[in-house]
């Protein structure tokens, strides 16, 4: 082996080892486990059961409800987050005194620990809590035991919190996109007498399209994996269990059905893979935004 390739190998080694031990091997192992009845609790030896786990998943009420909740979460929160983030970016994207303060303040929630955020909102959402008080003020009767203890409001309350938390992060990405639009375009438009509304719809929004698409896809991928807030706020009760919560619950809490949970994980993987592929197809011909 040449000396230089030896050095290259040495440099790659830490990554290769952790990658193989903590990513590749576990992933392959769980792919295989998904076709077995592998479990911590079963006395008998592990057996190959083919597609049985997958078949069981698609008639498992808990799993189907987790899929439903996850989709409600993703398709409910992602569009709202994107639109709000865009509006906030447009508001902040002016040379105004104090602009840095607003940007920092909007962004603050997204670097805070999710556990902490979830705890704060558990307090805000509780019976007789702050949000209930606000709701009563505008004439809305809050659920009797608090927002997180009702099938009809729990998931939506968590969604609202998530939107609140992540909107500043996506605002920053929109701001980067806004910055990359050449100023000459606006100048030319102004010379030709285009109103600021017209500039928004003819220049800003069309040129932000790739950024918006990018944001939608990464936010979807992230949202499909929602777990922590559900774990902290409702423990999956009140119709809030997500797919990752299901995997966690079946896999490592009570049942320890490793095979079954692995199969569920691969269903999630497949869904996210489809989204990622869509991302590549839609963004392939565009300049990356960084």
């Amino acid at each position, binding site marked *: 082996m040449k000396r230089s390739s030896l050095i290259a190998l040495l440099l*790659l080694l830490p990554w290769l080892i952790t990658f193989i031990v903590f990513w590749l091997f576990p992933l392959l192992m769980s792919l295989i*486990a998904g076709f077995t009845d592998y479990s911590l609790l079963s006395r008998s030896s592990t057996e190959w059961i083919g597609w049985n786990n997958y078949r069981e998943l698609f008639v498992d009420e808990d799993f189907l409800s987790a899929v439903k909740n996850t989709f409600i979460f993703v398709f409910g929160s992602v569009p709202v987050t994107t639109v709000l983030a865009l509006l906030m970016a447009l508001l902040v994207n002016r040379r105004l005194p104090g602009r840095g303060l607003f940007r920092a303040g909007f962004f603050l929630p997204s670097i805070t620990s999710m556990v902490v955020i979830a705890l704060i909102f*558990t307090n805000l959402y509780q019976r007789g809590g702050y949000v209930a008080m606000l709701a009563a003020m505008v004439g809305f009767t809050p659920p009797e035991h608090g927002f997180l203890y009702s099938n009809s409001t729990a998931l939506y309350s968590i969604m609202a919190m998530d939107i609140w938390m992540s909107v500043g992060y996506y605002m920053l990405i929109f701001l980067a996109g806004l910055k990359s639009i050449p100023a000459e375009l606006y100048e030319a438009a102004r010379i030709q007498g285009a109103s600021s509304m017209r500039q928004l719809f003819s220049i800003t929004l069309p040129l932000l399209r790739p950024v918006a698409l990018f944001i939608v896809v990464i936010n979807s991928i992230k949202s499909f994996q929602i777990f922590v807030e559900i774990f902290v706020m409702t423990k999956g009760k009140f119709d809030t269990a997500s797919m990752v919560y299901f995997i966690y619950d079946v896999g490592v809490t009570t049942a320890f059905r490793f095979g079954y949970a692995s199969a569920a994980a691969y269903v*999630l993987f497949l869904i996210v893979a489809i989204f990622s592929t869509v991302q590549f197809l839609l963004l392939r011909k565009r300049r990356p935004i960084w």
Partner: protein
Amino acid sequence: MVASRIRTTLRYFGLFSILIVMVFPLLWMFRVSVMHSGAAVGFRDLLFGGVTFVNFLDLFHQANMGRYLFNSIVVAIVVTDANVVFCFMVAYVLARYRMLIGKLLFVTVIVILMIPAHILIVPLYVLMIKTGMYDTYWALMLPWLVNPIGIFLIKQYLESIPPDMEEAARIDGASELTILFRIVMPLCKPALAVLAIQVFFTNWNLFLFPYILTSSESLRTLPVALAHFQGHQAIDWQHLMAGSAVAVIPVLIVFAFLQRQIVSGITAGAIKQ
């Protein structure tokens, strides 16, 4: 001019309204954390209740807050340092060595980026148990030592630096390792700083894996400890919010000093959360 003044006023009104909504929950947390224990967290108490720091003292004296804080700091620092060194090494090979497998490795990095980490819940748990790493510091650190986003970030940066300096040093007879760590690494400082901050924050806030891969009380990081606090008896909001504040304050301090790098890290590394 009147129209433009109205518009500016409206803009500020909008900005301030949003700011209040965004910052309010965090202020709420700080307010509750300094309230007298046992007081109902009602609106009147929030405004007129006194201020006390005894909740924080309780956490460190009666609960094991010091230990949790220590765990969080140690794990985050080790993981961050490892990422800075290892991601740099991999990125250097990918950017400078024209090897056939270089391309293949880069594709691998991209593919990992797209795989949702949460599907590792079960296999990592099993792996840690089988290897005896379950419920040790290893389980908290080892899986996160080299972050593919970091490799990606540093590689992009390295490719923007011309290799002139390295070649000059090579002609002068410097060894590969000297070139790597004495010459190239200092040049990458801005990108490495961005990476370090991102990894630090991510790790500081990590919950799910530390939670499922450990069980001892003495190994809890702050987020894990907070989740356990809440899981117990009737919720004691004053102490819970004080604990939350302990987890948030370091982040706020780092954010205050390094806002620029953090923002550029978000926009540069936005490829994956």
